[in-house]
């Protein structure tokens, strides 16, 4: 790699530098507390996955290119040159991180490893070394946004069968799944496919909600890729749709990262203030139940059931009580995992790992702790309001022969609704 390319890649770090990142670079005492917090280090023992080491790779680049000692006394500076070896290491450690932030929770200085990972991804993309599959998935979402007229008929066709199922479920031949409904109160953003549309439609129908379904899926692979431009473009498809339909709020399906992108990241990235509210569907379902807008059967699920706090919903967004409130309405034997809430272990599938086949074995291995946590509860049903978590839990269920059922909160509620 020539010097110019090295400086361009290292320059990304300079552009991203701010007080927070400088503080993180400076303050780490190498106490290693974070090593026991990261499921990836605990299950592999590989230093590459130690949170403080992930940051250390970036710190070395900083020392090499942006400190006096790095520039003038390189041998003494502990700095590292940007070369193929460093990029290989950076790729492995960065795209494997699930962004669960458990390390940050336990770090005495609250050092947020995901900030380093965001910089690392930007450096890798600049070097042409970003994750190819995540780039393809993000690209596909952008293309879908640009050519939605081409796909509209396909989506309408897809919804016909789902609408029939809805009508059967609620016993009303007029029940429908509205799309493009101007003046609806809420725009519901589901995932690709129909599995997150039908249960939501049942719930909205019973709550007599004035809703409309988004043409776009909630998932944002631009975010996982670490490409802010793509992430904004993907989210903006939904924002523009909400604007043109003049809805009052956007309701995101049970998908942790999609909710975080819309609720916490989009405004800062796009530098625009959104004129509507963003909510997750779990919050809305809890409200419907509390307000008596939907009624649930008193015949509660008897099988033991546990709840997995998705990192992006719990630790990273602060929703702990709403899911538990709903679960307690529908399940007679709810058992908490230990630890839970902000201390919960990551399932190992977040951060886009479920979409990266080269990490399949790694995520199964690093899901070991979650498997043990679930087994200890004796639960037969595991509920989680995040698609990435559910896909990972499905894989763990299969690979570790757990014999459990994995479900969403929406499905629990839709099945418990009294029609």
């Amino acid at each position, binding site marked *: 790699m020539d010097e110019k390319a090295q400086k361009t890649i290292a320059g990304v770090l300079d552009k991203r530098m701010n007080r927070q990142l400088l503080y993180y670079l400076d303050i780490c005492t190498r106490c290693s507390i974070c090593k026991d917090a990261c499921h990836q280090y605990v299950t592999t023992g590989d230093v590459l996955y130690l949170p403080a080491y992930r940051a250390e790779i970036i710190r070395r680049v900083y020392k090499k290119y942006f400190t006096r000692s790095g520039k003038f006394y390189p041998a003494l500076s502990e700095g590292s040159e940007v070369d193929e070896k460093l990029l290989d290491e950076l790729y492995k450690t960065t795209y494997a991180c699930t962004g669960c932030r458990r390390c940050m929770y336990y770090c005495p200085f609250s050092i947020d490893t995901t900030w380093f990972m965001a910089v690392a991804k930007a450096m890798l993309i600049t070097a042409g070394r970003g994750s190819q599959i995540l780039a*393809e998935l993000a690209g596909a979402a952008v293309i879908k946004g640009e050519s939605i007229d081409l796909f509209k008929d396909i989506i309408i066709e897809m919804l016909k069968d789902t609408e029939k199922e809805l009508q059967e479920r609620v016993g009303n031949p007029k029940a429908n799944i509205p799309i493009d409904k101007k003046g609806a109160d809420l725009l519901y953003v589901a995932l690709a*496919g129909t599995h997150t549309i039908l249960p939501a439609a049942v719930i909205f129908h019973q709550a007599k909600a004035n809703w409309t379904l988004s043409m776009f899926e909630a998932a944002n692979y631009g975010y996982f890729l670490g490409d802010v431009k793509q992430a904004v473009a993907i989210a903006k498809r939904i924002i523009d749709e909400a604007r043109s339909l003049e809805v009052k709020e956007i309701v995101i399906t049970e998908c942790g990262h999609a909710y975080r992108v819309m609720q916490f990241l989009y405004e800062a990235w796009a530098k625009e203030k959104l004129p509507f509210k963003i909510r997750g569907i779990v919050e809305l379902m809890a409200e419907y139940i509390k307000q008596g807008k939907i009624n649930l059967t008193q015949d509660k699920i008897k099988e033991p059931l546990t709840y997995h706090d998705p990192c992006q919903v719990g630790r990273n967004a602060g929703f702990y009580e709403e899911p538990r409130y709903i679960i307690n309405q529908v399940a007679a034997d709810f058992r908490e995992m230990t630890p839970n809430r902000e201390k919960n272990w990551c399932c190992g599938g977040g951060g886009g790992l479920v979409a990266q086949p080269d990490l399949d074995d790694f995520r199964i291995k690093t899901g070991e702790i979650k498997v043990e946590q679930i087994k200890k509860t004796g639960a037969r049903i595991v509920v989680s309001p995040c698609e990435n978590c559910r896909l990972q839990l499905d894989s763990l269920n299969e690979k570790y022969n757990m014999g459990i059922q994995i479900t969403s909160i929406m499905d629990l509620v839709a099945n418990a609704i009294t029609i």
Partner: protein
Amino acid sequence: MAEDLKVDLELDLKGLLCPLPMVRVSQNITKVPVGGIIRAVATDLGSLADIPSWARTTGNEVVKTERVDKEIIFYVKRLK
């Protein structure tokens, strides 16, 4: 017609949810020669828009899509 298409690789994507159908096609596209065709059978309706979008973003082509009951059959041609 599908019968005219010479299929180089069959992929069973039934039961897989998004993004896995796209991921599996992406993973396998280089296993067929340029000009070769993957026949992928999916059940996730989301793949109806996702796989053609993936093909366009990667410079490949969905040359035919069929629906047989709940199955969606894609014929994806590797173009590069």
